[in-house]
């Protein structure tokens, strides 16, 4: 990893959580670890941002939560992307692609 990990801002975090859940249902900590792993630790998800984000996504019907017993025998929540979440995710990704390409064009010249 080069340099300090970057905290992800809220909206982007929502998109990333949904993308991770599109692979498979996971617990909160699993989502966080997966984001760290896939970004090679360039992105950092604070616990204080993760759970409010999960609650928000759940209240908007984009993810659903199921109580399950974890490997260590404790009860935990496992999150699943809903159909609405899947539809929203593809829109968000398209939007991200368009805007990040626009920033790249200014930052690095035409591509």
């Amino acid at each position: 990893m080069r340099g300090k990990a970057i905290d992800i801002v809220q909206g982007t975090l929502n998109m990333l959580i949904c993308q991770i859940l599109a692979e498979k249902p996971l617990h909160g900590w699993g989502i966080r670890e997966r984001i760290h792993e896939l970004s090679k630790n360039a992105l950092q998800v604070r616990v204080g941002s993760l759970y409010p984000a999960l609650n928000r996504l759940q209240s908007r019907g984009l993810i659903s939560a199921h109580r399950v017993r974890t490997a260590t025998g404790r009860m935990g929540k496992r999150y699943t992307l809903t159909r609405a979440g899947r539809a929203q995710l593809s829109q968000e990704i398209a939007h991200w692609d368009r805007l990040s390409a626009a920033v790249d064009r200014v930052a690095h010249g035409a591509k």
Partner: protein
Amino acid sequence: MSRCQVSGQGEHRGESEESIAGRHTMGKATDIVHGTIDLLMLKTIGMEPIQGWGAAKRIHELSHQVIRVREGSLHPALVRLHALGLIRPHLVKSGNRMKRLYTLTNAGRAQLRKELARWDRLSDAVDAIVHPE
């Protein structure tokens, strides 16, 4: 807080401008982009001495009309970058008027390199997640 307005392609067809905040129920996946106004301004001013509105116009053009830096974000951005010692205004006579052209300071050039590296790292990381191999 720095903010740049991102406008939709629709406005060129006379449609209303895209509002990121209102339209996306997931929140703003592109919040990251709002944090790039300093990068975009420094980059544009670094190309050649330019007036504030000229920098905004160039960002709009280079981004193929996707990113619009509004008046309400442009002025605070210029004030902030100046206060940080990253840009310097020069008054230049143009006809019988004075133009205020901005250039990058040495600190501004160093900051631009940092902001570019940060953006690349951030956007690569997000891309690695949303577009897995």
